[in-house]
């Protein structure tokens, strides 16, 4: 890097270009970027001493990239420029590490002076209020968080030896050609240029075994929580392990704060060291964990005979103040630090083939990939991968009672999802019994579940599991890349243009003839159709078709007949708009266009053997009728069939003759009601929910099929929950605006779901996750 390189990021050409010319004339090496994204891309490729960054940019804001810039190239000094100054942005910019702030319009010579001063003062941190004059002078009070100082290696050793006198000190030692964390009794035992340790330092925050409660047996049992607050220092923690600790912080501290973890965490000093000698199995840069700018008390970079030490907390600053002489870093020190970090980054041999942000979606789409089965074949279920993982934190809890049988302790110890019995319950059922599902679960935790739950990657790329796995299958990187490859291959295969075979009839309807029309109620008619080519519709109960009247338009209608009734199919239409009006005007013999069937329909296989409770409100009866007919035509395959039907008034009852046959059919339990009665109506009066309490149900074997106006669902669900029906057993068909029927046009979308593809039939359990649904 040239010491005078500047990157200007501004979307206004006039600002960008004038600043570029001015600085270039003044002898700077200038590059420009128009957007935040472009700036990041540029910074990934080359280095700069200073970045001049506009706040308001199209797309991502300028501030939003500061963090990433800091992670990638912590030494770049950022100067923020904006035409919209506010206290809040200033504060935010400073927090994110910007060193100065200028308001537009700016005088180019002012900016040039600031850039020059910034470059000349390299090493100066924004938070240092008074730069010390003599470089070797001990810093007494000016130590500030995020400041870097220089400490000789000898001095650091004396700091460690002083620490040993006051607290438990753990650090990295060499053992049998490998590295391990262990108790340190003399600073000379420390090895800080190691590659990776066998067990992670997180074992000191969440130990393999610990007592969480002490208790006495018997009625007076009053358990006493046990925590460990022994002060300790953990020395030599690599950035990826610091990131792992931050992840554990989320898991243990955020919800239900864990007293045992917090006691240890609050009493632990974390002294990190940059990893200049990465393990061949590590892929930390791909996970963004090769550099840590938070989460430590002190962070060392080995720059030869001394350490560059970044102060990460007041505790860390106090430590330096108390025990050692520090010096301000010279320009050489800074350059050396940058050089060693740059070199370290080139040493990583393994890389993720996709951006890590894509992993959750990628995994979600690959749940059924054959990879899980094939790759887990050699898994020993030995637990090594999860035991050595710094982000794994699952545990088992056991009681240990003393032989006198009077007192005991409750102990938690490491457990792991890769072990055979991890998800086994007392009745003997094991919810993750096969190797493949355990293998997949672990990779999903690493790339998806933990990230979604705690906002931090579940894998920090340390490579320990890959070292520990004798079957050589444990590396999440390998799994991520394999899944990415198979996914990309699938996508590519589908996308190769010249091999793409269009469905020419995707939007073109098939001609069908109207063979019968029947008026059902004032505004409702049913239409019986036959395809001109004599073919069947080939549908499932609950699917829908799109009916076209050329020149008017196309509308979706649920198929109202069962596929068991061969030769033709019916759909029923309430006359409410242009297309429905045109359909209502059709005469017998007319030809219309039909596309479909579309959607998922009712899963009739899953309903077999069950009691079926049909709840149809108004024209909700149309799609329900297809399933009622199906059940009647395959009567032996189902348990009880109970039909509840509600109409607003007796005149609005639909399929009146069919209702009468249902009522008299002993194979069917039929109840109906109307919201408002008339003098000649002798049946039930009341909304449909009043029928539900009248029916005796076995909640374990009853499947409720609910279709009706949107308002009906909420009340029906309440009644069904009173009957203890599980969410999985409440099946609904949703009405949404469906235009294309083939998952493209977007009208029917509920959150991320296309109703025409994944619906219209959903269980309540599915809908619980779709907040727009009911």
């Amino acid at each position, binding site marked *: 890097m040239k010491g005078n390189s500047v990157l200007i990021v501004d979307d206004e050409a006039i600002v960008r270009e004038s600043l570029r010319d001015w600085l270039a004339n003044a002898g700077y090496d200038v590059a420009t970027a128009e957007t935040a994204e472009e700036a990041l891309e540029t910074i990934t490729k080359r280095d700069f001493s200073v970045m001049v960054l506009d706040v308001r940019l199209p797309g991502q804001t300028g501030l939003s990239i500061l963090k990433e810039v800091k992670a990638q190239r912590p030494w770049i000094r950022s100067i923020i420029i904006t035409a919209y100054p506010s206290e809040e942005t200033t504060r935010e910019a400073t927090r994110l590490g910007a060193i100065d702030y200028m308001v537009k319009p700016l005088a180019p010579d002012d900016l040039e002076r600031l850039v020059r001063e910034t470059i000349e003062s390299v090493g100066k941190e924004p938070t240092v209020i008074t730069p010390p004059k003599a470089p070797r002078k001990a810093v007494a009070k000016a130590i500030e968080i995020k400041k870097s100082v220089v400490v000789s290696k000898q001095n650091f050793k004396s700091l460690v030896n002083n620490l040993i006198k006051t607290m438990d000190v753990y650090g990295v030692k060499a053992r049998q050609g490998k590295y391990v964390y262990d108790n340190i009794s003399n600073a000379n035992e420390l090895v800080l240029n190691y590659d990776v340790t066998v067990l992670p330092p997180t074992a000191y925050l969440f130990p393999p075994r610990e007592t969480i409660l002490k208790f006495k047996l018997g009625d007076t049992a009053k358990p006493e929580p046990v925590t460990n607050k022994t002060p300790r220092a953990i020395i030599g923690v690599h950035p990826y392990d610091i990131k792992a600790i931050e992840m554990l912080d989320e898991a243990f501290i955020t919800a239900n704060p864990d007293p045992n973890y917090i006691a240890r965490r609050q009493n632990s000093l974390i002294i990190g060291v940059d990893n200049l000698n990465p393990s061949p199995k590590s892929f930390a840069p791909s996970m963004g964990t090769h550099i840590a700018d938070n989460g430590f008390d002190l962070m060392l970079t080995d720059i030869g005979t001394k350490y560059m030490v970044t102060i990460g907390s007041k505790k860390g600053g106090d430590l330096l103040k108390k025990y050692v002489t520090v010096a301000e870093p010279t320009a050489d020190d800074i350059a050396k630090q940058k050089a060693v970090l740059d070199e370290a980054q080139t040493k990583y041999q393994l890389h993720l083939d996709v951006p890590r942000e894509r992993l959750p979606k990628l995994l979600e789409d690959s749940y059924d990939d054959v990879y899980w089965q094939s790759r887990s074949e050699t898994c020993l279920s030995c637990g090594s991968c999860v*035991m050595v993982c710094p982000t794994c934190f699952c545990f088992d809890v056991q009681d240990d009672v003393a032989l006198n049988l009077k007192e005991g302790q409750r102990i938690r110890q490491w457990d792991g999802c890769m072990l055979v019995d991890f998800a086994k319950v007392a009745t003997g059922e094991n919810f993750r019994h096969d190797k493949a599902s355990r293998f997949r679960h672990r990779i999903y935790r690493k790339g998806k579940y933990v990230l979604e739950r705690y906002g931090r990657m579940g894998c920090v790329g340390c490579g320990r599991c890959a070292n520990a796995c004798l079957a050589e299958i444990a590396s999440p990187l390998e799994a991520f890349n394999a899944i990415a490859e198979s996914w990309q291959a699938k996508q590519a295969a589908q996308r190769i243009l010249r091999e793409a075979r269009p469905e020419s009839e995707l939007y073109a309807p098939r001609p069908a003839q109207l063979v019968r029309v029947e008026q059902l109620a004032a505004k409702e008619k049913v239409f019986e159709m036959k395809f001109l080519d004599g073919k069947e519709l080939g549908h499932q109960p609950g699917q829908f078709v799109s009916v076209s009247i050329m020149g008017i338009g196309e509308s979706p209608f649920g198929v109202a007949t069962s596929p068991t009734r061969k030769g033709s199919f019916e759909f029923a239409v309430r006359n409410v708009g242009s297309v429905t009006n045109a359909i209502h005007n059709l005469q017998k013999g007319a030809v219309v266009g039909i596309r479909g069937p579309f959607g998922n329909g009712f899963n009739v296989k899953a309903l077999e053997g069950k009691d079926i409770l049909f709840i149809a409100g108004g024209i909700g009866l149309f799609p329900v009728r297809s399933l009622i007919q199906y059940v009647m035509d395959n009567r032996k395959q189902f348990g009880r069939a109970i039909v509840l039907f509600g109409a607003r008034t007796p005149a609005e009852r639909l399929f009146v003759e069919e209702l009468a046959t249902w009522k008299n059919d002993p194979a069917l339990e039929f109840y109906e009601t109307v919201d408002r009665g008339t003098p000649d109506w002798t049946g039930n009066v009341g909304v449909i929910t009043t029928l539900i309490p009248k029916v005796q149900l076995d909640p374990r074997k009853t499947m409720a099929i609910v279709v009706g106006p949107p308002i009906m669902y909420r009340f029906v669900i309440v009644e069904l929950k009173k009957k203890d029906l599980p969410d999985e057993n409440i099946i609904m068909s949703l009405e949404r605006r469906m235009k294309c029927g083939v998952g493209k046009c977007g009208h029917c979308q509920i959150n991320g779901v296309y109703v025409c593809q994944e619906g219209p039939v959903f269980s309540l359990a599915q809908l619980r996750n779709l907040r727009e649904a009911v």
Partner: protein
Amino acid sequence: MKPKVAFFDFTSCEGCQLDVLNLTAEELLDLLAAVDIVNFREAISNRSDDYDIAFIEGSISREAEIPRLQKIRAQAKVLVALGACACIGGVNCLKNHLPMEQALKMVYGDAAKNYDTIPARPINAVVPVDFYVRGCPIQTGELVKVVKALLLGKKPDIPNYPVCTECKMAGNICVFELGKTCIGPVTRAGCNAICVTGGRQCWGCRGLVDEPNKNSEEEILKKHGLTPEQVVEKFKIYNTYVEAKK
């Protein structure tokens, strides 16, 4: 009323019973406060046929041992297998690879005709077993754990995962990484990986886990330089009986 406990030995080195005596004085006193030991040939001279819990050391390798064991089973409310020989057959089963006459001759020479022998087997091949205290020798800690579970009327928490899990918890460097081999990846844990921690390797004395991935383990052993014969040998030492039964 304290439960009455009896120890019995069959074909074995009696090292597991000896280990019972290796309990600390405090543990022994606690144990004696909790149970009455009525039969323990290695420690006391009294004998009694009235007992509730029987600990059995040793495998069954002579016809005469079968009715003796059955009689103990009939008396004991709870029967516990003590050590590798009783639990899985153990090293005694190595002779099962030879014709019995040849085995007798190898051991007793000309006196072989005075002895009889049958292929060795774990005690659960003869009578039902309620609990197992595994290992060669047993770990006293686990014995105490099983006794406590018996007294509390609960199932002892004996792991069904491989030794690797505990070996990692112990912070050990994998023996494979040190150029050696072991069958810890398929052997039932519960020993806290004592052998590896002590600088040795796992020979499978606690028997295999319920669902060992033996194919994978064999491939791994071969990859680390073992011949197919050596792989067989690895499993033979303690697990001959289980292997033969498959």
